[in-house]
């Protein structure tokens, strides 16, 4: 049913000429009223040049291409991208040390659950995606059609990704919310 996915525009001159050339052997019979109108109005006295152009045919992307695009979008949503666009927090916060007067950077916005700086959002989002990819790598490692060394390296990479992602995420939450799990 892939022909249904092509939205047919008004037949442009090139395709009209191609159709005409292809139908030259056939009895020049076409049901298409636009074709007949165009044959009459400009193209009875205009001669289109011979070009070798093809209508771009678009095929649906593969499932894994779509999946990687979706992973990218997921990263943006989960790192609070929309929050960044609307509330426009600074990239990183700063506080002044009361004793020395020096300005120190503050990575995690303290005090509220629903607030962030841009960098903390992006790093947390990266950790989430890393954890997800770790599980995907584990599944790839268990696929039997690969060389053993690749399977081993995939499984090591997968396990370490998951462990790192989980540990870092828990660390981030503990820094952000001081009373976490107490």
């Amino acid at each position, binding site marked *: *049913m*892939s*022909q*249904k996915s092509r*939205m*047919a525009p*008004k037949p442009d001159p090139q395709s009209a000429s191609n159709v005409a050339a292809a139908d030259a052997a056939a009895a020049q019979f*076409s*049901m*298409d*009223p636009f074709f007949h109108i165009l044959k009459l109005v400009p193209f009875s006295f205009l001669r289109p040049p011979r070009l070798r152009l093809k209508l771009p045919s678009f095929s*649906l992307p593969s*499932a*894994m291409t*779509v*999946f990687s695009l979706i*992973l990218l*979008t*997921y990263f943006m*949503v*989960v*790192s*609070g*991208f*929309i*929050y960044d*666009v*609307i*509330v426009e927090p600074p990239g990183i916060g700063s506080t002044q040390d009361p004793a020395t007067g020096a300005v120190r950077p503050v990575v995690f916005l303290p005090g509220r*659950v*629903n*607030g*962030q700086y841009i960098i*903390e*959002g992006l790093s*947390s989002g990266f950790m*989430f995606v890393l*954890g*997800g990819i*770790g*599980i*995907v790598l*584990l*599944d790839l490692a*268990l696929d*039997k*059609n*690969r*060389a*053993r060394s690749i399977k081993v390296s995939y*499984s090591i990479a997968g*396990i370490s990704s*998951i462990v790192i*992602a989980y540990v870092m*995420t828990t660390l*981030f*939450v503990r820094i952000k*919310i001081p*009373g976490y*799990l107490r």
Partner: protein
Amino acid sequence: MAAVANMPVSDLLKSFKLKTKQQELLIRVSILCLVYILAFITRLFSVLRYESMIHEFDPYFNYRTTLYLTQNGFYDFWNWFDYESWYPLGRIVGGTLYPGLMVTAALIYRILHFLRFAVHIREVCVLTAPFFASNTTLVAYFFGKEIWDTGAGLVAAILIAVCPGYISRSVAGSYDNEGVAIFALLFTFYLFVKAVNTGSLAWSLASAFGYFYMVSAWGGYVFIINLIPLYVLVLLITGRYSMRLYVAYNCMYVLGMLLAMQIRFVGFQHVQSGEHMAAMGVFFLMQVFYFLDWVKHMLSDTKLFQAFLRITVTCAVAVGTIALGLGMLSGYISPWTGRFYSLLDPTYAKDHIPIIASVSEHQPTAWSSFMFDFHILLFLFPAGLYFCFKRLSDATIFIVMYGLTSMYFAGVMVRLILVATPAVCLISAIAVSATVKNLTVLLRSKNKGVQTGSTKGSSSSKASSKALLDQSQPFQKNGAIALLFGAFYLLSKYATHCTWVTSEAYSSPSIVLAARGAHGSRVIFDDYREAYFWLRQNTPPDAKVMSWWDYGYQITAMGNRTVIVDNNTWNNTHIATVGRAMSSYEDEAIEIMRSLDVDYVLVVFGGVTGYSSDDINKFLWMVRIGGGVFPVIKEPDYLVNGEYRVDKGAAPKMLNCLMYKLCYYRFGEMLTEYGKPPGYDRARGVEIGNKDIKLEHLEEAFTTSNWIVRIYKVKPPNNRW
């Protein structure tokens, strides 16, 4: 009997031994029963800590309407005009609410009374949400079974039973539309996916009725009526058109639309509103597809059919665009309303509609809110998407679309994490189930090691690798066991996190405040209810109370007095009038109050307790909303260098406006904290600027024990002067 006693014990046990299929059924049923009970009891924290009462603001309106429904019957409820709120306008309750929740609670109440359990309607209302949460876990099990397999269904039920994103709006006491609506949402989706998978008319009819229940329960039904057409469109684009899809969508759309029009609040929106036009467009597109399929079946000439296809598609698209354009231009089809348009363009509300922008639930989501509400599901979600993409089918395409669209909307508005929760739980369940299945397959492969080595892949068919395979068997099995323990550890951490979040963050009835005292003991502030009961018992029955719209529902439900504005916020000018009164000097405000017949004014003040959600912190929104309608009120008048202050350096208009005077009356003599001067505001952390406040047209009627709620009486105009 004697024969049974004569049998040896081992034979007796053997007669009870179940076959594997029965064992599996027993395990499944017992897991589901345990999950059902778990989902109910994890939501009972606030009932056990405080008492069985309704939380927050909106549920009080729902409670009041349910009370009216049980006392007066359905027809009086459906035609109810409420003259006790929005004085002097009144409110047509029957036509401006979603009756699903109230009718459900009233039905449960009637059933319990029929069975001679004489419970009070308040108990039924408090426990409706946990009951429906338990039902949601069952629906999640069946949905998981439909999408993937029974293992995924069980994991989905467990995950959704404790997920904080869902618990936040369905604790016991949170008697709000969402408690019932999420059940209706998941149920409708399950029925529709079942209908698409089987192509049966019965399932399609069931999904139409499920949609009707959803429309009656919550305004978020717009999500269903846009997601399902989008899903159908994606199926058409990916070439999965089939007769099953045709039957399912047509039946659901037509019947669902007709049923939805029975709800007065929805009315004819399904044919008139821009938000519902996608469904209609896809409906007509389906007819075009069916027509083309039929023509292709009749025609034998493919070239002819190609030409016919092109003409038909062009004409259909052109006709559709012209019809839509005509509809929008003539105004018959209304454009997207502000609430839903701000989901597509999040910056819209900030610039144009301050009331929507002021609600804290409508803020966009930061990463920590996601982490709080989902924990490890955030890792499992992309993995689950990967598994779905590996095994694409009609059902998995649906759950992927549901997950992605709901996650996007959850990113735009914190409140919508609730809608994303079922999708995230289901997709995560697929990841867990598939990973655990892979690992257990490794564990169980001990005897078949030699055969699988020879049948699988070319690279492992060498003789040497067979020996390697045998060598690595115990290593693989140990690794698989270790990974299974790791998965178990992660899931148990998830359960711990969810229980902690539920207990600490989501189980507070906002009407009763709690704080830790000096020695760690818990101090309870019950000031709100104290004030409302004072109103109920000490004011004339026809007294009118002016307050900010947040407290309207509670005052009407518990204080039983008429209010000027309440949480329905349907009339922005009326709210702006109240905002203007609160931000003006006392002489101007008294004119407004006299024109509205106000007898009492109620303000919430957190300076003594350090309560930060009081009216002084909300004051700038009153100024903005009032200034949006009455340009007399200008926000810069109340700020000093763009900063909002209440101390000595505050703007003079701020120090003399009605809200300031009412909140800080007699506060200048109050000692709130050791070592600080009198009049120290603990919520703002400053000493107030204007301590000597004299009220001319109002007098203090009541202040609660912790000064949180303060009620003032409007004095009648002077007789002689």
